[in-house]
């Protein structure tokens, strides 16, 4: 689940659409602005809402690449020179050569961010992350107490470890964000939560709705808020955003936003700005769409980009899938399911553009 909170917000990709050069610039890009790289599909927690179905066993659809292959993929990403790379998973810290991967990106001046549950972060780990040049980290924290967080994350002690990680990271000077998924257990304490993380020193709170995808669909749906609960919860978010303006960002992320935005961007001639690479090297362009366009171990990312990945949002199959999802409940009807089932592979055709 960590990944989907991140897909649009952690990039920090904010462009001002009222500025002409920004629009024209987005038509002329030589590569994606952001690449999200799943370094593993294994996870030490077993969260109720996880859309990736990550666990100790890893994900059967996306077995992870070996050390040599993943470094080759890192080189492919560097060749396209994106501004930001987000290290995702699974839990990225379970990847043995994680620090080498981050180091390679930061050596090239690329902004590297990471998403973690914080369980494995101790002082030694913080030092290593600092040394290898990580710039930004998002820790998942789904409540103000153990009862709320540990139940949701299915592992005792995960709340204490996450809070400890945040303290260590803030102390070391990292920019730390937290992600929060509202559910029946935690939504009433949101004001308390925002106050708590503000005192911990985080710079951003990223909130996204509970999605009926992956394990969230199979096991967690009973924890989803109903319409009225969402209504009051959203009011709390906007109120907090006002109260903490200038001190800490409180963001309400819409998982459907990029569906609408990218479809319109394509019509306006703008290129794909985010590319995702799964743990096995498969290339995607949306977390929630079970459509892959190839694999980095077969052809380089640059080849895919030049052959139509830049215009993939105009592909007829993609448009068909985009039109299937009008609200978050439509996700549960998707067949195949993202992450759970084998994805559809489409042939790139440069989006019909010459």
């Amino acid at each position, binding site marked *: 689940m960590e990944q989907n909170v991140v897909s649009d917000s952690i990039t920090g990709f904010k462009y001002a659409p009222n500025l002409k050069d920004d629009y024209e*610039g987005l038509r002329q890009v030589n590569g994606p602005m952001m690449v999200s790289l799943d370094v593993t599909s294994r996870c030490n927690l077993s969260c109720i809402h996880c859309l990736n179905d990550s666990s100790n066993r890893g994900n059967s659809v996306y077995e992870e690449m070996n050390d040599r292959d993943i470094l080759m993929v890192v080189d492919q990403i560097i060749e396209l020179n994106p501004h930001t790379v987000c290290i995702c998973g699974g839990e990225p810290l379970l990847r043995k050569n994680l620090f080498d991967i981050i180091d390679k990106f930061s050596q090239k001046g690329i902004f590297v961010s990471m998403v973690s549950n914080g369980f494995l972060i101790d002082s030694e780990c913080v030092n290593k992350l600092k040394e290898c040049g990580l710039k930004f980290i998002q820790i998942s924290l789904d409540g103000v107490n153990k009862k709320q967080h540990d139940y949701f994350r299915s592992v005792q002690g995960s709340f204490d470890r996450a809070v400890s990680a945040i303290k260590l990271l803030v102390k070391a000077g990292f920019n730390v964000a937290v992600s929060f998924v509202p559910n029946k257990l935690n939504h009433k304490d949101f004001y308390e939560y925002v106050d708590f993380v503000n005192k911990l020193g985080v710079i951003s709170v990223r909130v996204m709705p509970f999605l009926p995808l992956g394990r969230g669909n199979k096991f967690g749906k009973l924890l989803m808020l109903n319409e009225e609960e969402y209504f009051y919860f959203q009011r709390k978010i906007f109120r907090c955003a006002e109260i903490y303006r200038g001190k800490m960002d409180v963001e309400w992320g819409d998982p459907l936003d990029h569906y609408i935005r990218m479809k319109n961007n394509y019509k306006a001639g703008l290129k794909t700005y985010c590319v995702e690479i799964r743990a096995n090297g498969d290339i995607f362009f949306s977390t929630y769409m079970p459509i892959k366009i190839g694999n980095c171990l077969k052809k380089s990312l640059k080849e895919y980009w030049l052959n139509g990945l830049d215009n993939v949002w105009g592909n007829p199959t993609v448009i068909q899938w985009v039109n299937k999802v009008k609200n978050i409940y439509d996700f549960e009807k998707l067949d195949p399911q993202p992450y759970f089932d084998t994805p559809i592979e489409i042939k790139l055709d440069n989006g019909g553009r010459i």
Partner: protein
Amino acid sequence: MILQKNKNDFLHVRNEKKGYVSIFNHNTRTTTFLNETAYEILKLVNEGKNYEEIVSIYNSKYGMGENLEEEVLNTLYSLKYRKLIEFEMENNNISENDIRVAGEKDYSEISKLIKKNFIKPNKYIYMAADNEVYYNEETIRIRQFNNYEYNIVAVENARIEAVLTIAPPRSQFFGTSLITGIFFSPDMSEDKCKLLFTKLLEKGKEYLLGDINKIRIHIPDTENLRNKKELIYLLLENGFINEATLKNEICKKYDLIFYTLFI
């Protein structure tokens, strides 16, 4: 004007097609795009060139075009807005004491200043009502006297040089003040207008503090508003953000863009 590169920020630059570059600022985590000329000007600033030198370089390169200085200045403001460079404005000798709320003796002069702008408008003026009668001495007074619109003035050598009018919150928009007018002497320099606007706004915030959490201004999205670009830069520079657009407002003639400063 003293130009400085933004020393604190680490920038990741990528060349795009047709001379464009995209720039990612590691500190602010924002991406911005520059065209070829803007990027060239950014490089000149980073090399330590000042405004006059940059204008002279472009002058020798392309010849003295009519709008050359204005184009360079606009580009510099655009770079500043994107937090890629910093400006230090020249000192304009206006002290804090010269900025104050208007009183009974001031309405006549405020009216004259505004009416001068009907004949020769300053580049940065903004008026909510395009009607001279609205700016008669007595109507300005009635609005302030009845708590409908405040006039904050900048006084220099006992003369009113600039006015910012702010409507305090009404019950239906609790917490929001509206800027209804920005006026400067017609011949005032651009730098001075910008400096005075910042000071007037600061004073306005001080007066209204406790009653408001945002100040809004409505910019009509129409070709008739000739100084729209200048106004928008002025607002963005002072922390206003593009909050929303009301489509087909004012008798469905044009859109209204809301720029808002959150306090």
